[in-house]
């Protein structure tokens, strides 16, 4: 209906292979970017930024990271939380070791460490597939979590056993630490998430993205077409872990300010996995939709009783939220196992062929 594609034709491969070849999609993306970069900063409250937008963007980035591995390369991972933790601890160590260095560079650099560790734990993927691989990543999850607790060097021997983000400035703005303004943090998180999402979109539409999908769809055929399975999978592990690492670092640096090992527990892994599955395996847009659903829904649910004028204990609300989220997850898996991205695709297809059914 809204997709009026008549008259949109491509006279070059460049245009044909653009990220958004359809004019209406380009308009939509421009509108979203406008909202994210202009409307939200202008109108949003601090609470909205801190409790909704910043975590949403952080989780969206983590979901992109996991999606690269699970959605595009077909390798199941339950260790996302730990890989995020590696990023967080690495960024913390880096910025405390080099206090004068630009903190954003440190955050981006921290991903390199999680990439390396991710690749190591990806090694068994050559021989192991599916649920068996999940064990490998669980091993990573528990082993790394243990490291965060047992290696005091990682948290600079803090008595609390947690990492506390120091104050860092950039171009005269305080970007990290307790005094950093939500709006500043929001812009940093938004730029990094949007930037990495764009770069990944580039990788995914090129040779490397294709080779991941080849492995995912039919690994034997991929190998017979000249794709080296180990290299390709390891690269997916590394890239995925890099992104998760950066997301993990952002999580503590721009959102939580301080983090304990339990922040990066298996629960987080599952949370991210849900975002990916519900958002849609193999879709970058889906990662955002999944993150919005899993993060924002519970936040909203907390306000529902209040809005309805009910006086319910915070605990009860939390329990109810768990139940509702659990039930909704099952519901959406039943309605559309391929996630919101597929739902959107179906809707888009309907709009494109409107008023016809096909």
């Amino acid at each position, binding site marked *: 209906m809204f997709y009026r594609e008549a008259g949109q034709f491509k006279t070059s491969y460049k245009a044909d292979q653009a990220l958004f070849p359809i004019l209406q999609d380009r308009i939509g993306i421009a509108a979203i970017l406008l909202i994210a970069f202009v409307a939200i900063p202008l109108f949003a409250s601090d609470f909205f930024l801190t409790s909704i937008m910043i975590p949403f963007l952080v989780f969206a980035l983590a979901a992109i990271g996991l999606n690269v591995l699970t959605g595009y390369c077909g390798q199941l991972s339950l260790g996302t939380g730990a890989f995020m933790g590696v990023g967080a601890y690495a960024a913390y160590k880096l910025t405390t070791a080099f206090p004068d260095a630009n903190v954003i560079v440190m955050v981006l650099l921290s991903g390199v460490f999680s990439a390396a560790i991710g690749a190591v734990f990806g090694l*068994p993927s050559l021989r192991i597939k599916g649920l068996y691989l999940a064990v490998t990543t669980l091993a990573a999850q528990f082993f790394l979590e243990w490291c965060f607790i047992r290696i005091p060097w990682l948290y600079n021997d803090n008595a609390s056993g947690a990492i506390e983000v120091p104050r860092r400035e950039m171009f005269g703005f305080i970007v990290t630490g307790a005094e950093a303004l939500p709006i500043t943090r929001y812009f940093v998180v938004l730029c990094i998430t949007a930037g990495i999402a764009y770069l990944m979109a580039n990788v995914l539409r090129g040779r490397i993205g294709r080779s991941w999908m080849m492995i995912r769809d039919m690994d034997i055929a991929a190998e017979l077409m000249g794709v080296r399975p180990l290299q390709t999978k390891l690269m997916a592990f590394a890239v995925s872990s890099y992104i998760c690492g950066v997301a993990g670092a952002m999580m503590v640096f721009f959102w939580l300010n301080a983090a304990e090992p339990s922040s990066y527990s298996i629960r987080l892994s599952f949370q991210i996995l849900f975002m990916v599955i519900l958002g849609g395996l193999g879709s970058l847009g889906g990662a955002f939709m999944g993150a919005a659903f899993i993060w924002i829904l519970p936040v909203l649910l907390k306000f529902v009783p209040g809005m309805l004028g009910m006086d319910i204990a915070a605990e009860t609300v939390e329990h109810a939220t*768990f139940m509702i989220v659990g039930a909704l997850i099952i519901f959406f898996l039943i309605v559309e*196992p391929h996630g919101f991205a597929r739902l959107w695709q179906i809707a888009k297809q309907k709009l494109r062929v409107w008023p016809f059914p096909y």
Partner: protein
Amino acid sequence: MLYDIFIDPFVQMYDMPDFFLQVLWEGFVAGILYALIALGFVLIFKASGVFNFAQGIMVVFAGLTLVGLHENGVPAYLALILTIGVMGVLAYGVERVVMRPLVNQPEIILLMATIGLTYFLVGFGEFVFGGEPKQMITQELGLPTGSTAFEIGDRGLIILQHIDIAAAVIAVIMVTALGLFFNKTRIGRALRAVADDHQAALSVGISLNQIWAIVWFAAGLVALATGIMWGARSDVSFALEIVAFKALPVLILGGFTSIPGAIVGGLIIGFGEKIGELYWGGLVGGGVESWLAYIIALVFLLFRPQGLFGERIIERI
């Protein structure tokens, strides 16, 4: 350093055989409990190909229901029967609401659904029973609580908790019962038929839906037993959920569909974990129990990807 790794632990084992035997016993008991959890997984996986992540929370849920009912004045044995009933309702509900609509979906989707179920049960359990740890009603159920010490010649003594012995006995009884159930009863044979070939099972006139309900119920019973045993050793709390993840390495070792595999795998992990923790864990600051099981499974996987009881896979194109 090398000495600490390769020599010292063995010297200790020799020097203090009573301690070593005590460790082995601890490992054995832990292994039995792992095996029980794994058993729950195997039952469901065998019949439906679903890797049921909710098995862990089912253990907690069963334990909480039992204790919760008792706290509200229900006599222990009645509470036990009621809890069995609750597990039956849960099994039926899961089959109806989750399994049936998701039949034929890829395994990762089913896995996710069971994690969704976990969320739901966590919320529901906390909603009804509150989040605090509870004391298992061991005595009220007539389970032994004392302990017996055995002397090992002149080298010291080991202490066996009666509840642990009971756990071992119950585990053996459950495995035997399940074995008989699978091999001797009509439904049991039907279950095996399903595991081997869905089409074949359908053709002999067995309803898949019934079978799933039964299997989930059986897994619920196993969960209840596990919950009682585990709860008696510590508390009944949501922390127990994490134990369920241990089932994964157990299954890797034993294979996803083998009941004996689950037992053997559970024992290997139990022994390995305790021995590793007590003799080597100190070297790296302790707490290795949390991940050692996975590393054992991982190493094992690299050499034998098909598991202990699986057959070698020949890839075909």
